[in-house]
């Protein structure tokens, strides 16, 4: 009604409505892409999930423990995974920790021996041959993670890597027992599929 007085206001409102419509359509398209990637990833990795879950269950039963780690957003996904094992909403807790939880240890190691060793040194101090190491990464090639796997291998730990793209160094590394690769070029979509794979791993470990 005020259009003849303030035509620019109506133009702005039309622009806003069209932006909101575009945003909503984009969200649905990205969610569909994510769902398709999660489904194809689960399908492609079903056998590996079963293998890794069986070995993890065997180790937990024998007194083994789980250490998870990663960088940035992947470190939070690794922490969520450790939390799922340690404080499951359903089922019995299993011993699991995220190696990014203690900022004193992270900064002490980062400052004194270099960031590359922030996880390797923690595994050196805490890990033994019965334990499990899980690293979550999108590149699969972060130096601090490959160094941690090298240390984990040396100690006889079971090593599980999560990667994106083509799997990076994890995929070819003799230090990695099982490597889950989410075949995508998008960091976000990779992380979403990795979260579901991690959940599947936990579910597979349940009795």
């Amino acid at each position, binding site marked *: 009604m005020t259009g003849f007085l303030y035509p620019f206001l109506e133009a702005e409102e039309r622009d806003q409505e069209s*932006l909101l419509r575009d945003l909503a359509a984009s969200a649905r398209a990205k969610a569909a892409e994510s*769902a398709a990637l999660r*489904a194809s990833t689960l399908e492609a990795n079903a056998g590996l999930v079963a293998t890794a879950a069986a070995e993890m269950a065997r180790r937990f039963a024998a007194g083994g423990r789980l250490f998870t780690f990663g960088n940035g957003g992947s*470190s939070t996904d690794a922490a969520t995974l450790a939390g799922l094992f340690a404080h499951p909403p359903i089922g019995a807790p299993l011993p699991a920790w995220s190696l990014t939880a203690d900022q004193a240890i992270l900064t002490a190691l980062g400052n004194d021996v270099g960031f590359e060793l922030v996880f390797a040194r923690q595994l050196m101090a805490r890990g033994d041959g019965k334990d499990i190491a899980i690293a979550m990464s999108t590149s699969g090639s972060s130096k601090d993670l490959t160094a941690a796997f090298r240390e984990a291998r040396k100690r006889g730990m079971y090593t599980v890597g999560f990667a994106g793209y083509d799997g990076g160094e994890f995929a070819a590394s003799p230090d990695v027992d099982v490597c889950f690769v989410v075949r995508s070029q998008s960091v*976000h979509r990779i992380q979403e*599929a990795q*979260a579901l794979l991690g959940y599947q791993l936990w*579910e597979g470990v349940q009795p």
Partner: protein
Amino acid sequence: MSTDPIGSTDVVATPTSVGTEAVSTMGLDQDLSADLAAASLVLARLFSAGATLWCIAPAWEPHAQHVAVEFVHPVIVGKKALPAVALTGPDLVATVRMSVRPGDVVLAVAAADQPDVRSVMRRAPAWGATTLWIGSGERPDAGSADHVLWLDDRDPRLPATGGFVLLYHLLWELTHVCFEHPGLLAPVTPECTDEVCITCSDEGRLGEVVGPGRARTATGIEDVATVLVDPVVPGDLLLIHAGLAITRLDEPGAR
């Protein structure tokens, strides 16, 4: 079609179904995508006006940290870094109260019955903060937050399946799309009410008691007469009309 209005209660009873079916095929319906779009535009506008995004997730703290790192250190080179902070640890309500400034945003990833998040959401209008609430299962009461981004699946393991990660990734992606439309980022200013007599109007603003006769509101700390609602203690929520607290808004047992 199931006649069960909830439909997913049986998911809890059959623990193997969540990851493979419910979550992996989870799409985004029209409503949720529209909620995400609206929340993203508001968030972009508030960031443009100088807001900080405060993230909380008491039961799944890594989600709060994941949201913060998305905004602070974008995965896509060239996208701007934005102020976002995860707040964790004990006494979360006090931590958020201390942190938030008028114009900021509080984002929670939490169930509808999480007591600290419920308390923060109720107080946020008195702190001048806009609220976003991401969660799953039973929904918060209508109006509990400015933007509710909700997955209706009631499986308690859903927070560990990547469903929330998808929602806040999309929130980040859409917010950055909004930055490509600077013409639409100007703050939406409410209609001017300078000429209206406050005493005769229906004005009722939320205030949080900070001391005797003093309350924090969206516009700052102000004097408030509490004769109608006394006794009050710091932390009590009041509805304030023309400098007078006319009623209390505390939930039973709330801080």
